[in-house]
């Protein structure tokens, strides 16, 4: 009787194990397809700012004073111009692209593991951080739309939205007493 009960226990254990393992194998990646890779952090917040957001913002700010339609492609080869406004996708297209860059770069500001330049973790969990990240997305897309309309007044307004979005976050996390060691 006791042997039979233990045997049933073993059988049930094996059956449950098969079901559970079956669940695991169902999640294995299909051949030729990898599992979705996780985001990886390569730079501090400061580096991301200087690598993507700063140059993109400057394209937008330049369009406030210089009409993108009048900017001529770089010579001899616009395809490799380091200045987006004089590149193959220059003029108003460069302003559109800069708006996209801002909106998309917002995704990089919420990746867990991002550090500030002072080595402390960026406060990506903070509700105000996330609110201002959203403001950045909106500012980027406002620029994109204004650039599509090729209207410099529209860009003036959009650049104001960008400046404001930057200031809100910088005021709390960048312009802090104590300088670099305290700022994110």
């Amino acid at each position, binding site marked *: 009787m006791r042997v039979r009960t233990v045997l049933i*226990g073993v059988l049930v254990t094996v059956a449950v194990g098969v079901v559970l393992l079956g669940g695991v194998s169902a999640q294995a990646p299909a051949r030729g397809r990898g599992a979705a890779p996780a985001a990886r952090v390569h730079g501090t917040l400061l580096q991301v700012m200087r690598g993507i957001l700063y140059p993109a913002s400057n394209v937008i*700010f330049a369009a406030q004073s210089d009409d993108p339609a009048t900017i001529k492609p770089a010579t001899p080869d616009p395809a490799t111009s380091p200045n987006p406004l004089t590149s193959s996708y220059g003029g108003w297209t*460069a302003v559109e*692209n800069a708006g996209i*860059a801002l909106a*998309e*770069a917002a995704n990089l500001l919420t990746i867990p593991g991002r550090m500030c330049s002072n080595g402390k973790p960026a406060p990506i969990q903070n509700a105000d951080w996330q609110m201002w990240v959203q403001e950045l997305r909106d500012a980027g897309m406002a620029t994109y739309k204004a650039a599509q309309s090729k209207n410099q007044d529209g860009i003036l307004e959009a650049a104001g939205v960008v400046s404001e979005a930057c200031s809100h976050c910088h005021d709390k996390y960048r312009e802090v007493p104590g300088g670099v060691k305290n700022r994110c």
Partner: protein
Amino acid sequence: MVRGGGVLGLSVIGLLLFAFPGDGVAQAPAERGAAAPQQPRIHANMLQLMRGVLYPASNVIFTVQSDDPDTFKPGLRPSTSSDPLTSAYGGWAAVENAGLALAESANLLIIPRPCGNGKPAPVQAADWQGAGASRRRHGSLQSRAGQERRRHS
């Protein structure tokens, strides 16, 4: 009988614990005032992303193949120069930043989004992910090269 039932019960409990270890801990609520991490949001197709982030950063790197970054003079208003090489963070710092931009932009290429033609980008394909890893490596190398050069100049 009771002993046999105990074996059965313990086996099932053990398997359940093995299958769902520490689940309750992983779902602990966030701290007060903290929000749940944001999910990425898509604003651009792959083509727009390329032209918005990767293309300008690559051109900074390509330019320094022929032009020494040390020879770039700051623009009239460097802090708002639209050319990274003549900006407030110009010269080799711009190259460093461009490398970093490439490496970080790889994170944007693995977010499911459409291609320029509207079809889904094959972000799950193994070769796509391999290319992303390569871009990260090259971006990081460019960034390090920029840092090295700055240190020795």
